[in-house]
């Protein structure tokens, strides 16, 4: 039997590529008949193929495959959220991580309490304040916190001036002024009950006196040391804070009086 492997392959390729088969057969005249017989057989074998698939099955299988793709997308999103193998392990790791995070946060937050602008821990201190405000949803508690943080800024400013860091001191005095303004805006935009209004009113009166005394002393000290410009800036802040706190106090007093009137029993026969 002659080895027709190569000529047969050439013929099959010509058929696959729909080229002229005669051109190939002409190159192998001695084996032409044998090659034609083999090619006819290859075509006959193709006739043994199975029927085409049911179109309905084809569509169903396609849809199921795409559904599995969608399921994998969902699993992948879920896995990104919780990329751990077992629920118990996940829970344990989450607990340990949370505890470690809390410990680290508490340690850093405690250490940052006395920090001043420019200190490495000062950013943590401000972050903790923001976090506290963000997680305080009660309007009264939030207003108290704002007033407390205003106090912290005033304390920082005094320490900075004491350290001779006048520029930083002025910046923080401005922040103190802003914090008091925030407190004012916060209480004027919030619905507060009578007890909270009275409590905030007392706090405001207390802060008004304390702020006045602190800023007056600071301005006097700066003026005495010859830094008239900084002393003037502190005086301006003192005046502004005084006005703001006075406005807050008036607002709170008015609300307190209005709420007190509403809570008094109405005379008999009067329409509600």
């Amino acid at each position: 039997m002659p080895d027709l492997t190569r000529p047969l392959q050439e013929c099959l390729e010509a058929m696959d590529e729909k080229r002229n088969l005669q051109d190939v057969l002409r190159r192998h005249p001695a084996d032409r008949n044998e090659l034609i017989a083999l090619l006819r057989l290859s075509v006959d074998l193709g006739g043994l193929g199975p029927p085409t698939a049911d179109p309905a099955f084809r569509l169903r299988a396609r849809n199921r495959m795409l559904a599995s793709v969608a399921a994998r997308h969902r699993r992948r999103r879920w896995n990104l959220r919780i990329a751990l193998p077992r629920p118990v392990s996940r829970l344990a790791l989450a607990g340990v991580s949370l505890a470690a995070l809390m410990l680290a946060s508490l340690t850093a937050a405690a250490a940052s309490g006395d920090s001043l602008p420019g200190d490495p821990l000062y950013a943590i201190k401000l972050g903790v304040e923001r976090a506290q405000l963000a997680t305080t949803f009660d309007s009264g508690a939030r207003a108290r916190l704002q007033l407390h943080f205003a106090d912290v800024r005033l304390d920082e400013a005094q320490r900075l001036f004491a350290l001779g860091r006048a520029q930083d001191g002025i910046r923080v005095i401005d922040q103190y002024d802003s914090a008091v303004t925030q407190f004012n805006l916060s209480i004027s935009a919030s619905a507060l009950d009578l007890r909270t209004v009275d409590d905030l009113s007392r706090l405001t009166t207390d802060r008004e006196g304390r702020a006045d005394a602190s800023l007056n002393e600071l301005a006097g000290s700066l003026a005495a040391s010859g830094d008239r410009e900084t002393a003037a800036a502190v005086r301006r802040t003192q005046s502004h804070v005084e006005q703001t706190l006075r406005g807050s106090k008036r607002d709170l007093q008015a609300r307190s009086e209005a709420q007190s009137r509403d809570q008094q029993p109405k005379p008999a026969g009067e329409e509600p």
Partner: protein
Amino acid sequence: MTTSDDALIRRAQALDPGALAELYDRHFDGIYRYLFTRLRHQADAEDFTEQVFLKMVDSIQRYRPRGVAFSSWLYRIAHNLLVDRYRRAGREAVELTEQVQDGRPHADPATLAQNSEDRRLLIEAMRRLTPEQQQVITMRFIDNLSVDEIAHLTRRRPGAIHSMQHRALASLNRFLLEREQVEARRA
């Protein structure tokens, strides 16, 4: 593999539904034909075809071209499913039988009868081939796989497939001629 195939497969590897659907549409007929020829049972062929494409989704991210055509990789999945099935059933090979029906319409009853007789003779001749030859001939001319795809599936060199293809066709031709001569003598 063309650039567009590359791009399509990359998208499919990112589980892009459009790209996976495109691959399904391109390869469904070939995979179904390959499986039906071996399983000889429509429901089984459908079940296995579906499994092949679900496995494609599961493992396409691990597919690395490295000279292996995507179709070859897909046929390898189908082949492995068949091997598992035969192993479980304690069978080693699948033979072509008359049960594999040609779904195409025929011209008339005489042609149908003649075709049926031709088919019977051809299948009878196929059975006289070695199992390896049967496998290559079935893949090449019934499943319409390329020589490269068969080489990948059977883990042989393309040259060996060319050679086996020729020997198998030549043997088939010889068996059919012998059969014709026997029939002629009888007549």
